[in-house]
């Protein structure tokens, strides 16, 4: 279980038929992305078509869960679900897509949060949904 700055349940969305595979994946401990079988484009967030070439011929695959810290802010205003200040980050996955997340097992400070630091996914069980978060990793692992 990740050491998270969260104090009350996160505001969760509702899976749709097109995103269900993603949330099934996080429950199973997998970060699932989609790839186009026609043009090879890898994309996120989930949808039943390729945004690069309009093909419906797309597959779901389990991603490495590795990425790097692309950018972030540290929010100082109160949020009902978080003990602030807490970082909201854009993670660039090794497979290419970016996604929003929180960085856990890490001080929420500019000194500790260094751009381009290697990250790996971890999953936080929130009852109905498991939410993908990221934590620092050794660059060789």
């Amino acid at each position, binding site marked *: 279980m990740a050491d998270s700055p969260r104090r009350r349940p*996160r*505001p*969760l*969305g*509702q*899976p*749709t*038929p*097109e*995103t269900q595979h993603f949330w099934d994946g996080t429950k199973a401990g997998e970060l699932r992305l989609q790839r186009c079988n026609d043009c090879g484009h890898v994309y996120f*967030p989930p*949808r*039943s*078509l*390729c*945004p*690069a*070439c*309009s093909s*419906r011929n797309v597959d779901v695959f389990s991603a490495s869960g590795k990425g790097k810290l*692309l*950018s*972030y*802010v*540290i*929010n*100082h*205003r109160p*949020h009902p*679900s*978080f003990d602030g*200040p*807490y970082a*909201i*980050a*854009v993670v660039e996955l090794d497979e290419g897509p*970016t*996604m*929003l*997340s*929180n960085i856990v097992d890490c001080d929420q400070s*500019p000194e500790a949060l260094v*751009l*381009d630091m290697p990250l790996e996914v971890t999953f936080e069980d*929130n009852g109905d949904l498991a*939410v993908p978060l990221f934590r620092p990793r050794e660059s060789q692992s």
Partner: protein
Amino acid sequence: MTVAIVGAAETTELGRIPDMSQIQLHADAALNAFADAGIRARDIDGVATAGESPVNIAHYLGIAPRWVDGSSVGGCSFMLHVRHAAAAIEAGYAHTVLITHGESGRSGVGRGGRGGGGGSLLAQFESPYGSMGPTTMFTIGVLRYMKQYGMTHEQLAMVAVVQREWAGMNPRASYRDPITVDDVLNSRMIAYPFHLLECCLVTDGGGALILTSAERAADFPHKPVYILGSGESVETPMVSQMKDLTSSQAFRIAGSEAMRSAGINHGDVDHMMVYDAFAHLPIWGLEDLGFCGRGEAPAFIEDGNTRPGGTLPLNTNGGGLSYMHSGMYGMYALQESVRQMRGTAPAQVPGAAVSLCLGVGGMFAASGCIVMGNELP
């Protein structure tokens, strides 16, 4: 010019479709229409829709439009879209327009509407991480910009300092007392690296514009301000999905369209407004429209080019940072461009004949750009 419909299709199924969310119904119909017309999303340069935001539809399908219509007036919205699209195609604003509808009226799957309900991509993939609207999301690319181009915290603060200088000349500005870089950096931290004085105000207000033909304009009491050119675009409803966190695709498309349609070069612009919800917006605007090279706008502002007496007077009402910001500030940016072109602005730029006004919608989700002039083109 006569405009024609060259592709038309409904969703693959009709009736009860519990396995598709509302946005996927839009997309399913669009993909069928693409197949009917023998084209793909990349061939589309105009998007119109109702019930969902055209930002959502363009991003979902992978369209980078230069014309957008989200007119939403009920069930006849699509008739209005057809009419608006015909005018746009005639005007050369778009070559190929996609109009979509999708509604999970029976199954109620992912019925988000424009704001996005629980099934929206935003609710699923951004809200869980404690995003709190503009202060946390508009600002999220700035650390990346700082690393990429070496912008300092002091240079970001300088944007607010310069705009306060303009506000000091404007009796209607909310904040008029001069500030220093230290004042900005010592103001309360809102969302690192953004301090209070680098965030826009929250005020009440309103504005309105009236347009008519240049022919009729002479019958009105004020010196006419002419629309010389315009541009628009959308990119994504989610900041985390911008193709480049340090640049707005919507700014680039809207800005280049506006300048091209106005037939002007950068040197022709005497006055500029860039919607400044946060201090980095003018930097993005100056670079995305090519007034500065990549990474050069912070020094351009620091060197005084945008301040009173500078080479490119920018946000001369004081901007969203000091003048006012009600939430949809674009109207006030337009009002200041009109005042400058009429020659009636409190901080009038002497001899200004061309004003470029760049707006942002959502958090880099959309952009509109208007070029105004005080002489008939």
